[in-house]
């Protein structure tokens, strides 16, 4: 089972490629070298507060709007800005181009981190729990059996099952977002650092997985400096310049984007100035480490499929099943929920397992176990799933985009007209080009799935032919999935 806390401390697992590299990006540009002023900004202690504070105020405004504004979904800013605009920006731009930059400005842990640190900007120096920072709260260790992303997987699946409710009911959005906000604050008082973000936050889970594709990474410039020269390991333990990594990462061993929240504390605290913010090619990290991460990729793909069928497809009955708040059809909703959970947790994984077994058989050797093939090849569903989500999200913004314009003027649906756009009528934006956007995205997803799948196969097998043969069944599965999406999107 994967332990994200060990992500930066355990790189000697069996599933590692023979050369030990988990990141196959050869081309990298260090933005800190290219733009020294940007590094200065990142090292500036106030920067995170200055970015999170407005986000937090906007978030509180959304909660207020959800509670006391119009209870009609498309007339309330919490629904339109969170589930349409934010989601689109997150999945389409932030994650693929800027990794987990959202975690840098996320308001959920704002109060929790404030109470925990007893500071909004400054660093408290002290000595506790092996750290060089002083923190408040109980500072307990997160239960060992939960040091994986299974909880996030289940919570995300549960949350998405009720998506039709929070897309139409602002108060349900408040319950979900406010619940996460309260949970983040509460857990910060009990557990160390950002245990909530690391193990509980449903948004964090999929961000971590899809951040593997991101064209940005924060890494140690030279890991040898961390391992051999650096005695203090400030990134992990903190210093008077920066807090100990809230995500429990040690830069000397951090090889993937999955559990780096880009908070830039390591940039501030590194005594050797050994941190780089690199631009790299798409799909730089390719190592899936455990079943929990593999299942995350299955869940995300299943949800992209179910959402596409429910929200974009012509199936009125399924829409009615999903929209139980309107229809009150709990029997239909149970079927809908059952389909989601079965597809995500059993259906796709089972097909993947069969393809992995067949791949092992076709490879003609037993040198790689079915388990390793199953887990490592599941990475192929990361670019595939991400691009499918983007392909799903484009029509969402094209159809509902005009609501954003009117909501800016009347965020609570109270009859305001702040910037004179309150009465802009709903109108789909360039919706005639939806398929033109979706088809290339899906094909790009398939291309990266196969390309990276092949790269992974070469790390598993010494022989190129065996590697290619082992890949055939999963490529067939990926192609079938993309064809299903194409059929659904283009009719």
């Amino acid at each position: 089972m994967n332990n994200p806390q060990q992500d930066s401390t355990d790189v000697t697992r069996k599933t590692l490629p023979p050369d030990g590299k988990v990141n196959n990006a050869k081309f990298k540009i260090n933005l800190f070298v290219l733009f020294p002023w940007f590094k200065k900004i990142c090292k500036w202690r106030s920067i995170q507060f200055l970015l999170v504070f407005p986000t937090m105020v906007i978030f509180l405004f959304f909660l207020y709007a959800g509670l006391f504004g119009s209870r009609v979904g498309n007339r309330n800013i919490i629904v339109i800005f969170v589930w349409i605009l934010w989601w689109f920006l997150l999945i389409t731009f932030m994650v693929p181009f800027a990794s987990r930059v959202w975690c840098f400005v996320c308001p959920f842990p704002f109060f929790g981190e404030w109470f925990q640190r007893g500071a909004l900007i400054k660093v408290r120096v002290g000595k506790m729990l092996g750290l060089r920072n002083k923190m408040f709260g109980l500072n307990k260790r997160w239960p060992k059996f939960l040091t994986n992303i299974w909880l996030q997987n289940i919570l995300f699946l549960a949350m998405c099952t009720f998506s039709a409710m929070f897309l139409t009911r602002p108060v349900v959005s408040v319950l979900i977002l406010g619940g996460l906000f309260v949970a983040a604050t509460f857990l910060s008082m009990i557990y160390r650092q950002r245990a909530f973000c690391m193990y509980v936050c449903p948004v964090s889970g999929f961000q971590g997985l899809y951040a593997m594709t991101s064209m940005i990474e924060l890494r140690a410039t030279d890991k040898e400096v961390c391992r051999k020269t650096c005695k203090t390991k400030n990134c992990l333990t903190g210093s008077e310049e920066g807090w100990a990594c809230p995500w429990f990462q040690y830069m000397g061993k951090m090889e993937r984007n999955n559990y780096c929240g880009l908070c830039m504390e390591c940039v501030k605290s590194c005594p050797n100035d050994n941190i780089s913010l690199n631009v790299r090619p798409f799909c730089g990290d390719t190592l899936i480490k455990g079943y929990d991460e593999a299942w995350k990729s299955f869940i995300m793909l299943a949800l992209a499929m179910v959402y596409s069928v429910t929200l974009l497809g012509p199936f009125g009955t399924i829409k009615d099943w999903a929209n139980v708040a309107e229809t009150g059809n709990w029997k239909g909703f149970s079927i809908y929920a059952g389909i989601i959970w079965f597809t995500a947790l059993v259906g796709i994984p089972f097909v993947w397992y069969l393809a992995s077994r067949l791949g092992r058989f076709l490879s003609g050797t037993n040198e790689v176990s079915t388990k390793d093939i199953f887990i490592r090849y599941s990475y192929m569903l990361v670019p595939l799933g991400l691009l499918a989500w983007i392909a799903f999200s484009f029509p969402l913004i094209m159809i509902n985009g005009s609501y954003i314009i009117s909501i800016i003027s009347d965020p609570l649906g109270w009859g305001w007209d702040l910037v004179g756009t309150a009465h802009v009528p709903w109108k789909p934006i360039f919706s005639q080009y939806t398929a033109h956007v979706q088809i290339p995205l899906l094909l790009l997803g398939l291309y990266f799935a196969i390309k990276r799948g092949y790269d992974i196969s070469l790390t598993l097998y010494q022989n190129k032919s065996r590697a290619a043969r082992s890949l055939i069944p999963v490529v067939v599965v990926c192609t079938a999935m993309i064809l299903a999406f194409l059929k659904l999107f283009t009719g």
Partner: protein
Amino acid sequence: MKFKEILATISVIVSVIALPLVINWYHESYVLGAYPEGTKVITLSAVAKGGAWTLDKVDGTNYWWKDFKPATINLEEGDKVVLRFESTDVHHRFYCPELNIGPVEVEPGHIVTAEFEANEAGTYRYYCTSMCGDCHFYMQGWIVVTAKGQPPQQPEEIAMACEQHYEKPPKKDMVTWGKYLYYKNACISCHGDEGQGGVENINYIKDEIPAHDILAEKLWLKEKEHVDIFVDMLKKRVDFEDLEEEPDIPLFNLVLKQYNAAKDLIRYGKHCAKADAAGPEPPLQMVSWQALLTDYDMDSIITYLLMLYEWEDDEE
């Protein structure tokens, strides 16, 4: 650093406290306060659940549990009024024919306004005239205009409130099933308790909604035994188009014609004609039920209404 920390802390605390205050201040000052001085601004929220135009603030925190009551709007003669309508759920239509307000289309989540001057003292009934749900027909209330210096008049009570929880009887008994449908579908709100009619419909050519407890008479069923025979045929689902033998009911063709007319009225609805062509549209209209009621349902309602007729006791 200490100064920055204090400044940051103050910023957070102030913004958390000030946020709701600023929102409400803006709303009161720049939205509600934007109307000319002396104007009475009244916000009416339409709630399909329960059927009410309410003066209460309706939002996500109270919609689910609160029992919203139809508003009585009290005004004084000469008041200049702006009514701000908002729908909290589905499409509604506000209509107060006697004050010449509306019909105002009220889309969910949009605020629309209607302005008027309360010139004459009186009680004026308002309605929702867009089929908005199970409680649509109960969505009525009063605008009461009182002479200056006088206490507000008490309007007559709106006949009844929407009751959505009728016990569902077995479908096979047409009379009880018809009664259930008559009450559940709010036929009672216009046609009165037990089909007595008498509900006023402004500028309607017949003034009032006709009674239906005399449906037997309207169908030319002059004897109780004729009604029993006809109801029996309805229960047996006899095909009136393909009768082998005509029943023992006088003027049966006429009865059949009237029965079909009554059923068509339920099926397709009817536009209520104006008494004064230049006057307002009558607010109460017979809607089409063909999408909601089956053929059996319609026959059940007719059966129930036929059974309401009070026969003189022949034996006496």
